[in-house]
């Protein structure tokens, strides 16, 4: 018996991802919100939406904080409570989770959740510095450890412990780039080969340029309501049936395991139990592939395969569109792009499309159960959500 709906998604929106020159974060957020409105004509935004949570990681990019109010203002949703959630790259996974809290509390019947980041107008060195702020300052940043560096430390440990290869990491990039070509909103629109990845320049060994997700501008959102109200707004709601969020040490160095993310494992366990489903039941998943190695570790943490077998799963083709369990059909952070604050609800947007049969060229046939896995920093935050279609 699949778990009962906690909250229902009645609409969702996504801006075009990529280099969005000349635009501000708030303008991108309005673009995503407009799509959500267009998809849900029965919703009257000023009447119905009672609260909003907006994920946003860095005020350094635009010298702009206070993103909750700015987003409420520019979406025309004043005077509702509007709060920014910040959990590094899981900022909008945390916004989604906050929306679940808000609806379940009974204080707000309809809640807008989303996220945004405007990054591409900054230099790579600046972005490298801003992203590193998600990691520990006095011991990691201070000693020159970058954000890719932290994931490289985990990738190296995984390769050492399990024999995972650079070609297996590359297989993740190849798959996600292929998926990106099927998503008109993805930043990258070209297929690549394993050789392209292996020949790309080193960022932090063993991670190379094509192992890394992109620097992206973009915004995403979803509109949540109580399951009993969902049909008022749409004939095709998607229900969230499991929600887990967990935390871990801010410093990677203090963790017991360097080959898995305990926060992600814990968030997944909570979400699976709440949803009363197992990893085998999942039809489609969006996982946090900030680096190719992170997708391999995600497979293991989510129970898609045993610990140490993620590399083989990546190579098998089973997680490619048409395979047993397609992962990151949107192109993932790797090819769709990674505007960090927008990523969590962008994953929810993709699952919303998949479970309502609107994913067009990348539609997973008969997808009924979906999962999102959103990681903040080097794994100090993780949020896992499980979704089911109305027809399940």
């Amino acid at each position, binding site marked *: 018996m699949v778990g009962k709906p906690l909250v229902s998604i009645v609409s969702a929106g996504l801006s075009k991802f990529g280099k969005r020159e000349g635009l501000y974060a708030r303008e991108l957020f309005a673009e995503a919100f407009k799509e959500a409105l267009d998809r849900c004509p029965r919703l009257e935004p000023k009447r119905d939406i009672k609260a909003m949570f907006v994920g946003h990681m860095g005020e350094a990019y635009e010298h702009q904080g206070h993103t909750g109010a700015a987003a409420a203002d520019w979406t025309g949703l004043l005077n509702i409570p509007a709060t920014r959630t910040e959990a590094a790259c899981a900022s909008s996974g945390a916004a989604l989770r906050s929306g679940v809290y808000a609806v379940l509390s009974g204080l707000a019947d309809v809640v807008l959740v989303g996220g945004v980041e405007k990054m591409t107008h900054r230099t790579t060195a600046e972005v490298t510095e801003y992203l590193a702020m998600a990691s520990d300052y006095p011991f990691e940043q201070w*000693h020159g450890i970058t954000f890719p560096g932290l994931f490289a430390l985990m990738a*190296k440990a995984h390769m050492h412990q399990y024999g995972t290869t650079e070609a297996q990491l590359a297989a993740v990039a190849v798959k996600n780039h292929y998926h990106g070509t099927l998503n008109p909103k993805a930043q990258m629109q070209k297929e690549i080969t394993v050789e392209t990845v292996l020949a790309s320049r080193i960022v932090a*060994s063993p991670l190379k340029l094509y192992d890394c997700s992109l620097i992206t501008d973009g915004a995403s959102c979803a509109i949540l309501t109580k399951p009993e109200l969902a049909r008022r707004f749409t004939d095709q709601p998607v229900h969230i049936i499991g929600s887990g969020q967990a935390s871990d040490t801010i410093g990677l160095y203090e963790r017991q395991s*360097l080959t898995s993310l305990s926060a992600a494992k814990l968030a997944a366990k909570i979400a699976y139990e709440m949803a009363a489903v197992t990893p085998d039941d999942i039809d489609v998943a969006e996982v946090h592939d900030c680096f190719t190695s992170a997708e391999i570790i995600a497979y293991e943490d989510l129970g898609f395969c045993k610990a140490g077998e993620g590399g083989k799963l990546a190579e098998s083709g089973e997680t490619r569109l048409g395979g047993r369990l397609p992962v990151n059909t949107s192109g993932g952070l790797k090819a769709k792009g990674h505007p960090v604050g927008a990523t969590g609800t962008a994953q929810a947007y993709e699952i919303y499309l998949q479970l309502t049969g609107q994913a067009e060229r990348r539609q997973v046939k008969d997808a009924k159960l979906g999962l999102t896995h959103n990681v903040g920093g080097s794994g100090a935050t993780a949020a896992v959500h499980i979704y089911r279609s109305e027809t399940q």
Partner: protein
Amino acid sequence: MSQTSFTIEQFYKYLTEGKLMAGKCTRCGKIHLPPRPLCDNCFNNQFEWTEISGKGKLVTYTVIHIAPQQFQAMAPYAVGIVQLENGLKIPGMISGVAPEQMRIGMELAIDFGACSTAQPWPQWPRYCFKPL
């Protein structure tokens, strides 16, 4: 009981004296590296300083090629996580070994050499690890 508080600042000040110091909880005995104001095991706030051996084994490493502005002149440089003899882990730069010679499990020791020439507080001294 030591007069100094169990802070990250004090941890770095000890480095300038060539000492790797941790806080030991007086109630449950847990050793905190770096020291903390509150034991995350038993919530006690009383500690004593204990000196830690700076020798250990490399648990994992990476060579960073794309660095933030302040480290760009040093790139590429190696960083790693070292498990010390008492089992605790700390990160740091690794010098004195070529990247292709580096391997997980190799024995390293903390080097305070750069710590004595560090800028005055609040510029923290940067220790590093070198092969034994």
